[in-house]
């Protein structure tokens, strides 16, 4: 079921943007543990700064939806997944190292 949701969102994003430009990101966190709390703040700040108006950020708490952790093969948390544009990129950590994030998302 969650996979379907993801697909739906993907399709939605694609439709809205004509398949171009807009980033769809998912951030998997575990409640308000320090790493997760930092990741939430960092991701929001990052998106506002580098992807303003061309992103959608979904924050998922796997404490609330443990089944999603299995579907996405999550072990390390926090985890940011760039679902779109393809290819999919997975970033582990609290996103405090902005340079790595920029490099991996090819935004530099």
């Amino acid at each position, binding site marked *: 079921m969650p996979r379907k949701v993801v697909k739906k969102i993907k399709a939605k994003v694609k439709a809205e943007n004509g398949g171009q430009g807009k980033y769809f990101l998912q951030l*998997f966190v*575990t409640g308000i*543990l*320090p*790493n*997760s709390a*930092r*990741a939430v703040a*960092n991701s929001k700040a990052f998106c506002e700064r580098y992807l303003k108006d061309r992103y959608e950020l979904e924050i998922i708490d*796997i*404490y609330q939806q*443990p*089944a999603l*952790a*299995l579907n996405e*093969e*999550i*072990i*390390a*948390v*926090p*985890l*940011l997944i760039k679902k779109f544009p393809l290819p999919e*990129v*997975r*970033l*582990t*950590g*609290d*996103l*405090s*190292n902005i340079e*790595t*994030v920029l490099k*991996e998302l090819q935004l530099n």
Partner: protein
Amino acid sequence: MAKAQSKRSNVKFPKSMTGIQGLDVITNGGIPKNRPTLLLGNTGCGKTILAMEFLVHGIEMFNEPAVFLSFEEKTEELELNVRSLGFDLDKHLAENKIYLEHVNINQDIIKETGMYDLEGLFVRLGHAVKKVKARRVVLDSLDTLFFSFNPQMLRLEFKRLISWLKEKKLTAIITGEIGNTLFTRHGVEEYVADCVIILDNRVINQITTRRLRIVKYRGSIHGNNEYPFLIDEKGITVLPIISDVLLQRSSSKRISSGIEQLDVMLDNKGFYVGSSILISGTAGTGKTSIAATFAYSVCKSKKRCLFCAFEEAPHQVIRNMRSIGISLEPLMKSGLLNFYYARPTLQNLELHFISIKKMIKELKPSVVILDPITNLMTEGPNSDIRSMLTRFVDYLKIEQITVLFTAAITVGSIERNPSDEGISSMVDTWMMVQDIEVDTERTRSLCIMKSRGMLHSTLVKKFLISSKGITLSRIVIKQNGTLTDFKRNAKEHQNLSTSNGSKDLVESARD
């Protein structure tokens, strides 16, 4: 003394039975309950199978649901492994008793952007545990994690995992590679602390032996030795070296040797039930024939017999025995007579014993025959063999199984053959068959070297194998007869041997 100790520690330290043959014996009742146990070993040591057996037995024997988290094998591969051990996995899956999950780590290279932890793994584990209400958990193997993540973070997380498992009161097995990986190099096992088991796979003389050792078991006594273990189609068997001699009962019941005249020599009654009997002799003296006659007589009295042949294939034994009037085939068909046949070099002696023991457990025979034991002796140093054989004989005695083994010896080396010496001290009845040359003819002779707890004949008997079976007859010699006298009387014997010698035997029951 050992018993009293274990009782005391059992009170302090709750244990969880693994259900694996032998392992529960050497751990005095299983691995620590509600705590994690570390299972270390190189690739191909049997870690996964042992862990899996622990879970399946937990479900089948103790109704404890289980979670298996695999970092290496895919779920389908795991399922196949469990099925190959003959467990009814589908039933357990359907009843929601077991949950298998593959944790895919190599999905992509980990790109670190800052601090992180393994909370995702905890969430998944917690989710899985909740799903089946698990009491037992296996994580196989954590090494994979260490290849992918930052070791420092992992050590902290590992520590957290251990306390998490303890907090949730889960009996867990965590497997890991030994030695050259980060897992053990970073001293992770310190955190587990309660119980560490190491598996090992060693090749000596081209024969592989798997061994198991309990390195650490906090708060409990345990066997310190390395114990050989075996993996076959029925799973793992560990051979404990501990055998409680006090458990041995000494029966005063008797069992016929199958040769009338031999029974007469043995106090008119035959062997003791549950005793050990050795027949030693040079090649071609009829050791196997005596053994087969015994087997035949046992089966004829509707008791089971296990014939372990290390020299000849069962069919050959059957054919050869037919020539002396013993037809074993119908007995085999009726299931009373069973053969264990294996080349001695196929595996280590200990493993032969494990296999034989498994058969004994299944068949519950009243007699076991090992023919010949000396063939097994080519493997490994003699002291090992002696102790292994002693343990095996002890085991059979506890089970009240009569064991007969034959030993081939070279001419004139009876006293000098160290292995034979070792055996003869552990057997209750020792018979020797020898060739005596009479002019141009070889004559077989039989004598009882010793027989504990009974009056037995001290005479050397002429031992004749004909198409009607084995007969013993008296050797007639002059008053202070020597071998030369014996030779001189050769003609006389030949005449005598054809007549029935039973009358001559009566006087032989003398200590």
